[in-house]
């Protein structure tokens, strides 16, 4: 057991964090204008496209965690890049039983994909039958992508949008659409693909949580009230400690779930649900606390905390809502105990 990041993973994190920090196109820009591709968008799609792609799918042995580290770093800065949606689409197509590699143009970022997973009226990827089995909702960057990775009851397939309707997203830096896809010619078994893709969303949520905490801590270190910086009040400091604890839990769950999926562990399913649920909760909580710590400024459009909340809400809603994943984790945990041996005695 070596539960530490590899040097390569640290380097990926540092590299993407530096890209994100230097990026000039911000999530805020989409509040007042249409979405624009950030400068790093092409670089990410082109140079990082093999991260997390299994060899069977055309990868070079990169672990899923490698990809999550990159996505987390983008989330911290709310970079409005298509890369996370594209990477999730790639992962969705990377299920265990994939018969052949993904096309080069996808892996090289020449053809940008996005995910079409969530069904109108549903909460998760298996809890509702769409009235129209070829309609998906909450599809990010649909107008800015070249194709879709679609999840259906029988598996996954790649499609172009037969039609789409742009929706009004609470986070305009992640344009969302309802999409109608053509009926698939061939459907591949989803296998672990849906789990892999869900973890990409979880990783971005962990990044959003971290970014909100960092922003809140900066405010707490500098804002003065009653003659002291407000971070010296436990009433403020402890809120952020709770947010940091929730974020750490979510990130650890996400990393472990990725390892469990990558290595085909039998508990991979419940761990993915746990990760997505915990990451959504941590991000929304951190963003709400970030607003609170900013006081009056926190509820203004001109301060940044609400940008974290918007992104957190959208990601929590996508790829199965957080509340659905939590319920599923509970159901699976209960199911696992049916017929299980009794808990051995422990002294406490």
């Amino acid at each position, binding site marked *: 057991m070596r539960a530490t990041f590899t040097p390569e993973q640290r380097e990926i994190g540092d590299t993407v964090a530096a890209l994100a920090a230097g990026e000039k196109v911000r999530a805020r820009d989409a509040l007042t204008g249409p979405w624009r591709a950030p400068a790093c968008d092409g670089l990410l799609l082109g140079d990082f496209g093999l991260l997390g792609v299994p060899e069977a799918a055309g990868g070079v042995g990169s672990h899923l965690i490698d990809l999550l580290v990159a996505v987390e770093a983008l989330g911290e800065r709310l970079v409005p890049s298509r890369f996370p949606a594209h990477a999730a689409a790639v992962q969705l197509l990377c299920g265990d039983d994939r018969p052949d590699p993904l096309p080069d143009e996808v892996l090289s970022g020449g053809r940008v994909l996005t995910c079409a997973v969530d069904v109108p009226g549903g909460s998760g990827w298996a809890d509702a039958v769409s009235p129209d089995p070829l309609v998906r909702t909450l599809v990010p960057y649909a107008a800015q992508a070249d194709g879709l990775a679609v999840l259906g009851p029988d598996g996954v397939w790649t499609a172009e949008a037969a039609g789409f309707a742009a929706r009004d997203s609470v986070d305009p830096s992640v344009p969302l659409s309802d999409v109608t896809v053509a009926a698939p010619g061939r459907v591949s078994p989803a296998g672990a693909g849906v789990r892999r893709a869900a973890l990409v969303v979880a990783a971005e949520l962990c990044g959003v949580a971290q970014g909100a905490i960092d922003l809140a801590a900066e405010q707490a270190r500098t804002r003065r009230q009653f003659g002291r910086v407000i971070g010296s009040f436990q009433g403020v400091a402890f809120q952020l400690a709770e947010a940091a604890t929730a974020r750490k839990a979510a990130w650890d769950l996400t990393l472990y779930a990725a390892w469990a999926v990558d290595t085909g562990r039998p508990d991979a399913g419940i761990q993915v649900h*746990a990760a997505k649920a915990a990451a959504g909760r941590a991000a929304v909580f951190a963003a709400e606390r970030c607003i609170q710590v900013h006081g009056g400024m926190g509820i203004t459009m001109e301060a940044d905390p609400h940008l974290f909340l918007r992104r957190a809400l959208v990601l929590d809603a996508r790829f199965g809502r957080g509340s659905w994943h939590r319920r599923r984790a*509970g159901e699976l945990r*209960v199911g696992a105990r049916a017929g299980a041996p009794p808990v051995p005695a422990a002294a406490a």
Partner: protein
Amino acid sequence: MDFADSGTDLAFRREVGDWLDKALADVPDQEELSQDEREHWSRVWQDRLCAGGWAGLSWPTAHGGRGMDSLAQAIFNEEAAVRGAPYPLNGVGMMLAGPTIIAHGTDEQQARHLPGILRGETYWCQGFSEPGSGSDLASLRTAATRVDGGWRVNGAKIWTSNAHNASKCLLLARTDPDAPKHRGITYFLAPMDAFTVRSLEMINGDTEFNEMFLDDVFVPDSDVLGGVGNGWNVALTTLAFERGSMALNLWVWARQAVDRVVDLAVARGMADDGAFLDTVGALHCDAEAVRIGSMRMLGESRAGGVPGPETSALKSLWAQVVQNANRLAVQLDEAGGVLLDGDGAAARMRRYLRARAHTIEGGTEEVQKSILAERVLNLPRSR
């Protein structure tokens, strides 16, 4: 990032498991026992650990240990916890006293103290906390004054596990009342012959903690560890070992607490309720986060780091998940858990009440949050 056992680790885990299965074969379910019986089995268990050569598992071979690393120790602890093994009665000796003496002791001290721990002859306790200094450990007031050949110690200690079984004490006392509070402290390896020990009854009826009263207790110079006035630094070493020893067995308790409440709900036909499922989902997340976080902590410290302030997040999560699961078990119990002669009800209530201490012992919840605020978030001191 890899959470799998290596081949070596896996082989060791199997070796440990085989030994434990045999050694535990005649050990009854500790949950069903009285405090006295549990203590009996803790002593038996300590003897078996010593006889089996597990007592110094991660001690250097030069000191009679097996020279394995913290991961091996963690694997052993985990496998033992999963099987509900008793607490070893000399955990303080094996996990805290031995490593601290190895780190700071003289050759003479090491030769004098270490073999007794490995052989199961000398039991240790930890005399840090005092009635007046709970979270603020460094404000301790037990005073050691210079006398011929050593020190005369007066004061009181509290929350001492196993003091009534121990003959030696890791004792902090103030040797320089005029120095700044972290500077005037000295660390003693004190013989306990002259200590007065009084057991403290906990709210769940157990008596795992004690008070100790020191009235002109003499401690010779040869039992000063790490130098006069250097006690705070030595204590930090002990505290780091204490945190490290949590790794990879705390989570077992959390998982078991969650499994128990699930089992109860299944048995009572309440497990398909939406509110219950949501709660179990949340408890699962927190319990697994403790497990995974523990592995990462261990991984970081084996990679040359020291367990960082994130440890406080694990402690905090752990305490909450165990408290929440144990409270829920009482609430789901027949008659709200208040009739202790109901089937399993006394054990459930005992666990619920015991868990109230989890946000107090080993650094209160408030201290953990302060550490996170100051050292993870770089906020100014708030205490």
